[in-house]
């Protein structure tokens, strides 16, 4: 009989009126890599947070190694030899690697109360070397790369002698190369006979690494399948509950004349010190230009400068051959600039406002929405209904607030607002971040539709699949410099990944 490292039976959990988990059965065999697949809000994180004692379940039983257990808090989960690597790292930036790893289980000197740093360092080094991590235990977390920070998270679990490792969306923050390295680490952990629960919504990763896959949708379990018995298309359909087009149809199309351009643009971020260096980009009608790069290499600065939120130190921005470098955000929007911001909660929406008021944002001066001095709410409400319908925004009630929508629906709301204003140039920054697969498909089709309408799109994204399938041309940004540019056909994924990580083309 095989041992089930984890067996969860009939698990339910509600938050208010939302059933995050609805009678879910979930079991993981010892020594396998089990992928928990589902869209955002399907209940994956809730399920593992219950397993790890971060949430209380409303009902259900949990068995570890065929033995019933009660887990009330993470301390209890650690005792059952579980370790969790969280999507948002649970690390203290200003503490050293050692301090982050040992906290809660500190080795002390035999005769005293103080922490035995030497003993800790030896053990941390040992784990680090076992898996070829090569990290200095005294280094501060804030000086590590994202990939290295994730390794510290894994070491935290191994230090506590975890046998069952739960990885919650671990690849969301990684470059393709770092993801490959993570998968190698996962393989070597598996050889070490550890059990791994891997949470993701990415199909290709699932197909690459999983032994078995459990699919969740809307808080319910849809099924568990062997990797070898399934295909990405089947998985996508199970995740979304309907047929999903994974491949996009993009017509071949010759771009028209230039509509928007950036000339010799330089900017230094006074806080981070990051410098945009003499950026030149030209955008033509009917073209999608993609900007690839690991987050924090200047995309945000560029986005804010184009939108008019920040002024560049030097250089020019031209819109329809008109200089707009010093023109206000509002004026730019009137000229036909649409902005889908990368941080939708900060710049895209007011969470506490109703959907209609969010639709009005940025158009409150527009006479269309005014009735002498007052907002014409009848008109606004009709207009909103139309957009919500056209852009497939799903909401629970007429008076819903924007913060009550799921990430995908928030994004569709913003896209609906921005694209319905008849823009000529669309600045789309991370348009599908934290958005489920069904909404991604919809957003992609909207961007292609804009392209068909002979408008220009600037797509800033960290998702290589998205860039490769939508863009006509691709630029790669690294540390504020455009390090490569060309037609999409000139690149492959691996090359883009390397360029994003700062390797030059000649190096290879």
């Amino acid at each position, binding site marked *: 009989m095989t041992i089930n490292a984890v067996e969860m039976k009939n698990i339910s959990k509600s938050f208010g009126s939302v059933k995050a988990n609805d009678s879910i059965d979930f079991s993981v065999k010892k020594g396998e890599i089990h992928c928990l697949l589902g869209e955002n809000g399907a209940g994956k994180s809730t399920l593992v947070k219950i397993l790890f004692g971060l949430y209380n379940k409303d009902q259900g039983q949990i068995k570890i190694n065929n033995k019933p257990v009660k887990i009330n808090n993470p301390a209890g989960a650690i005792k059952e030899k579980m370790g969790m690597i969280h999507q948002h790292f*649970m690390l203290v930036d200003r503490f050293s690697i050692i301090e982050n790893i040992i906290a809660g289980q500190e080795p002390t000197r035999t005769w005293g109360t103080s922490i035995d740093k030497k003993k800790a360092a030896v053990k941390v080094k040992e784990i680090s070397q076992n898996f070829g991590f090569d990290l200095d235990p005294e280094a501060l977390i804030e000086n590590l790369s994202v990939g290295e920070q994730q390794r510290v998270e894994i070491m935290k679990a191994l230090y506590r002698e975890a046998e069952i490792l739960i990885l919650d969306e671990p690849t969301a923050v990684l470059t393709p190369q770092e993801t490959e390295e993570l998968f190698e680490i996962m393989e070597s952990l598996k050889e070490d006979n550890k059990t791994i629960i891997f949470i993701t919504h990415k199909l290709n990763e699932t197909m690459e690494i999983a032994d078995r896959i459990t699919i969740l949708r809307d808080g319910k379990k849809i099924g568990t399948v062997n990797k070898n018995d399934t295909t990405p298309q089947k998985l996508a359909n199970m995740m979304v509950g309907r047929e999903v087009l994974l491949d996009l149809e993009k017509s071949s199309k010759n771009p028209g004349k230039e509509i928007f351009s950036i000339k010799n643009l330089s900017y230094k971020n006074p806080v981070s010190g990051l410098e945009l260096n003499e950026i030149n980009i030209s955008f033509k009608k009917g073209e999608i230009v993609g900007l690839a790069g690991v987050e924090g290499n200047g995309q945000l600065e560029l986005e804010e400068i184009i939108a008019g939120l920040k002024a560049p130190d030097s250089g020019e921005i031209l819109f329809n051959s008109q200089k707009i470098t010093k023109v206000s955000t509002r004026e730019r929007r009137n000229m036909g600039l649409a902005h889908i911001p990368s941080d939708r909660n900060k710049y895209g929406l007011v969470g506490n406002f109703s959907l209609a008021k969010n639709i009005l944002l940025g158009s409150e001066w527009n006479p269309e929405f005014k009735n002498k001095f007052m907002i014409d709410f009848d008109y606004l409400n009709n207009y909103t209904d139309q957009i919500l319908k056209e852009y497939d925004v799903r909401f629970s009630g007429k008076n819903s607030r924007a913060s009550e929508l799921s990430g995908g629906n928030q994004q569709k709301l913003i896209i609906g607002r921005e694209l319905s204003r008849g823009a000529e140039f669309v600045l789309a920054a991370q348009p599908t971040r934290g958005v489920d697969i069904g909404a991604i498909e919809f957003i992609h089709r909207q961007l292609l539709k804009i392209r068909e309408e002979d408008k220009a799109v600037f797509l800033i994204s960290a998702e290589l699949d998205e860039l490769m399938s939508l863009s006509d041309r691709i630029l790669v940004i690294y540390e504020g410099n455009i390090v490569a540019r060309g037609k999409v056909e000139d690149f492959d994924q691996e090359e883009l990944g390397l360029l994003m990580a700062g390797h030059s083309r000649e190096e290879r």
Partner: protein
Amino acid sequence: MNVLGTIFSINTLAAAIRLVVPIALAAVGGAFSERSGVINIGLEGMILTGAFAGAVGSYYSGSAFFGVLAALAAGAILGLLFSFFTIDLEADHVVAGVGINILSLGFTTWLMQVIWGQKGASPQVAGLPEIKIPILADLPLLGDLLASNSPIVYLMFIIVISSWYLLFKTPLGLRIRFTGEHPEAADTLGINIRFIKYFSVTLSGVLAALGGSYLSLGHLNWFSSNMSAGRGYMALAANIFGQWNPLGGFAASMLFAFTDAVQMRLQGMNLNIASEFIQMLPYVLTVLILAGAVIRSRPPAALGSHYKSNK
């Protein structure tokens, strides 16, 4: 110049050491509380309550020692109350802290009326005797400064150093700092953050109250209305200026205390300056430090926030 000579004399420094006690103890308390993530603006009220409880304990028992114990107990109770509001009820830390201060001021003034029938000050109570440490007394300079002082002064030095050790060298200290930086991370490591916060905040109440008891049993031998006179806020500033480190907090407290001592000396010299201006000095310094140094400081990342495990 004579004025400067008087200001920077060993006597001024000795006075500063006596004045620093309540500020430094409360600053160390503030370090514990804030390192665990709880802003403690209630230090002021905790000092005041400590001073009052010390006087009452001494008044009824006739022993200053029991007065100090009463102060510690009162500080612990106030700390627990503050913990309950900020940790379990998730009250805004600043609002709850101001509540503690108002409660302390009103409660002590009212009880003074009840116990002693007077508003301004209590009658004389038994104070703590000064202790002479023989070896120290023989040292030049240090001997003059430290040889003969209230036991709470010596206790303060021990507390400052051992608090630094506790916070930065022991497992408990690491857990306190972890909780203040990233409570969720601490939670996932199996650290009992509720216990850690309760412990730290209660300890800050005890330390501030000990500082308060020095006011009514060491520095003077009676309690007077609003005796803390803003020392809790100075301690708060000293804690921040000292980078949430007991040693730094002590050094910053010394700066305040020294200014205070200078201020008192200046008043005694009949200079042609209105005494109100001179009395302002320590408070002006507090404002300047809070406005200037604080900008560059880096508080615990989760300071002032709420986190509850196991939703």
